[in-house]
């Protein structure tokens, strides 16, 4: 049954027009990498890839937007369309509904963002210095899970998950962490950057993260496990009633 829900969710996600737009979003870094290679600005390729391409575009916009649109819709759309009843009345523990839904959102987010990261990185770096690509690639996959978990939590806990998620990503992670640096520990973006920096182990001139690697790993694990448990609890509390 888990496998069935997983495949069903993947099919729902892939069949939508908006997923095509997300693929277009993932293609943007690749286009920019091509522009970078064609133009000659004298910027060091490693620095440009880490700070402009990855930090400026992929981590800031492509990853959170993809995770947000997919993470809030896997369960959120079922609630909005009223089809959640058919899932929730199946004789299954609620975590067996949650797990495949989350896994499907994660798989699609991670594959879109990872492809984008690796292809654009290889083009921008001419295949050299793969440490940056590996570091950011792994960080993206972990961060994708963290984002998807948080957004699934939002979609179970509120009816305006997308707006709440947008405010978290662009107001909290985008603006507040820039002014009060200490709250970067409470941001998936900055902990993910910590992981990337930790694995890539590049010189500080090329890239330097605010959050340390070990701390970031612990924080992300707490976010993922805590989020999943909370989402499960929330989903267990949902009562199937007569639909309005």
């Amino acid at each position, binding site marked *: 049954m888990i496998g069935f829900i997983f495949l069903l969710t993947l099919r729902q996600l892939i069949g939508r027009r908006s997923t095509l737009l997300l693929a277009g979003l993932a293609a943007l870094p690749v286009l920019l990498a091509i522009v970078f290679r064609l133009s000659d600005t004298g910027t060091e390729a490693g620095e440009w890839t880490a700070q402009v391409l990855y930090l400026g575009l992929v981590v800031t*916009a492509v990853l959170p937007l993809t995770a947000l649109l997919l993470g809030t819709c896997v369960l959120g*759309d079922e609630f909005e369309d009223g089809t959640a009843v058919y899932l929730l009345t199946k004789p299954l523990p609620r975590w067996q509904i949650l797990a495949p839904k989350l896994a499907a959102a994660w798989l699609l987010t991670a594959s879109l963002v990872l492809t984008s990261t690796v292809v654009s990185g290889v083009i921008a770096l001419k295949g050299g210095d793969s440490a940056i690509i590996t570091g950011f690639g792994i960080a993206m996959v972990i961060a994708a899970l963290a984002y998807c978990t948080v957004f699934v939590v939002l979609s179970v806990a509120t009816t305006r998950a*997308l*707006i709440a998620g947008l405010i978290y990503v662009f107001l909290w992670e985008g603006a507040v962490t820039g002014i009060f640096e200490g709250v970067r520990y409470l941001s998936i973006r900055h902990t993910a950057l910590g992981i990337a920096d930790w694995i890539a182990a590049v010189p500080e001139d090329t890239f330097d993260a605010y959050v340390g690697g070990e701390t970031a790993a612990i924080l992300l694990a707490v976010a993922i496990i805590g989020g999943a448990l909370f989402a499960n609890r929330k989903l267990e509390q949902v009562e199937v009633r007569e639909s309005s």
Partner: protein
Amino acid sequence: MAEQANSPTGSIYDLGYRPHEGERLGRAYATFALFVYSLRGVFGLGRSALSKVFSMGLAVVALVPAAIQLGIAAIAPLELEIIPPEEYFSFVQIVLALFCAVVAPEIIGRDQRNRTLPLYFSRALSRPDYVTSKLGALAAGVFIVVGLPQVILLLGSAVATDDVVSYLGDNAGDLPPILGGSLLVAVFFATVSLTIASQTPRRAFATGGVLAYFVIFTILGSILVNTTSGTVQDYSVLISPIDVLDGSVHWLFGAQPPSDSDLVHSGLAGGVYVLAAFAYIGAALGLLFRRFMRLTV
């Protein structure tokens, strides 16, 4: 009545229907009424508490930079200007984008989702009237959100100084660019967001689309300016909606953009940004009206 009821072929009853004898207020009034109703909807007035939380919350967040500046001005004895008037827009740009992403789908999408659009279009109100009302409502809403903090900041700074009259005399020249810049920003955000949001009746897609447009194209413009060179570098900044508006606002104030901004990297003259802003508004208006003229309800 009785003799009619006895006739074998059926009967017609006088149910007391009367024609409307009051004043007919016409199209213009209907347009205005829809504008007022939609403007209330922008801030969630007359709606559920949940729809007030996000729109009013973001409007309050747009006041925060003004509140901080005034707080400092009240305590610090010297004149300390952290937020010059021409920079206010760049402090609240993301708040405005979020505000439009939240509000635009409510304004333009609700009637499509609830299938009330045919009711509007079967009355005196024409399709362009409908779009004009909705557009005016969102533009007025954004104008309040971006303009009010700047006016409060100007008046508050005056009150915080020793000599209110001379401060106002020195800084009264800021008022026209504050209002003009806010108006341009408001019309730009309103037309572009409504054009994107009107493409889909689903709220989630509309919200995501509006925010994705502002965020992605601003980042793209910024990266291209810093990556390319020559003519491409100069004009790629025009991809970014935020930079176009930022450049226009600086031009209206007659101020130089800060040295680290994308505007400096591209050496375009300020007037070009205003022209670009008008071009964006024109294109968005065209697409929006076209969409509603063709929409089958």
